[in-house]
């Protein structure tokens, strides 16, 4: 393989990768749009199990889901707000999570709503005071959990 061939191959790989990445993002956007549209129509009649699948929860439900899903959030009194992207819940804790570890940044924790695993959160700072949380398929896409875990009984009862 000559240098020019290698350069062309790398450029083509970059094009292919960018196109694949765009397809992945577009697919995720379509799923989100579909979920929001469906959610508006059926929100009032859906049972909690269905809500796990569609990812329709209020920030208050998500906040309550943190201590229900992971022991470390017990007693931390989280509050959450849904970001403008419609999928990310920005959650802030009133007190530091326990047990304290050296670095919560990038740490992944589960959320449980109505005793079922509904999604998960990713630590945004070293102290573990802020978390970005995702529900349903979005949590799978963020590689917090695998799809087969969604809707399963919570693994670790919360204490808060």
């Amino acid at each position: 393989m000559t240098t020019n061939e290698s350069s062309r191959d790398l450029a083509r790989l970059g094009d292919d990768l960018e196109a694949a990445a765009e397809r992945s993002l577009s697919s995720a956007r379509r799923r989100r749009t579909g979920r929001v549209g469906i959610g508006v129509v059926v929100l009032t009649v859906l049972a909690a199990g269905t809500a796990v699948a569609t990812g329709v929860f209020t920030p208050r439900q998500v906040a309550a889901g943190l201590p229900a899903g992971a022991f470390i959030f017990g007693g931390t009194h989280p509050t959450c707000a849904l970001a403008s992207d419609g999928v990310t819940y920005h959650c802030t804790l009133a007190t530091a999570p326990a047990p304290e570890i050296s670095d919560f940044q990038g740490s992944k924790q589960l959320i449980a709503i109505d005793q079922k695993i509904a999604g998960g959160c990713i630590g945004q700072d070293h102290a573990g005071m802020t978390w970005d949380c995702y529900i349903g398929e979005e949590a799978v896409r963020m590689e917090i959990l695998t799809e087969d875990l969604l809707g399963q009984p919570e693994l670790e009862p919360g204490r808060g």
Partner: protein
Amino acid sequence: MTNGPPFNELSDAELLRRSRRSSAAFRVVYDRHAAPLNAFLNRRTGDPAAAFELTAETFAAAWLSRDRFVDRGEGAAPWLFGIARNVLASSIRDASVQRDSRSRVGLAAAANVGAPRDEWLVGFDEDLAAALAGLPGPQREVIEMRVLDGRPYAEVAQGLAITPGAARVRAHRGLASLRASLGAAPAPAASTPVNPKETTR
């Protein structure tokens, strides 16, 4: 992008953050790092086809795990080379170049690539460190700041008390030297990791 600096002025960490919503942001990271990474893998394997496949798998894996990138202020290069090391180790273990990540993102993989060999991984870290250490001081400074740390040219220039144009020239020469020391001949400017768009700014 209608607000803020263009992608090619952003750090690797910021680009990876934005790549949660933008494939173009990830492309800039690719453009910065693909050629040195491929050259390094080419040097390690002595097999251009295998090196290319490993590069492709590394970047597909990087795309899938971009949310897990932790900004330690050192840019994306150590993270990418770490992924490459893991891809290489898994490929050697399975006696076949990994293709799982490419499959997941819908990228095709070459059908016929030779089986990876154990020696491809031996001395991986030392080899990379030696390649960087072999650069002349001024070039190494720019490469470390621009490519490894992912800092914008304006910041590199300020840190080294030179003009942004001089920083670009040093980076270009440094990358050419790095490619040469990694076993690849100089490539055309359009294929260097320094985004060609930046040279017009």
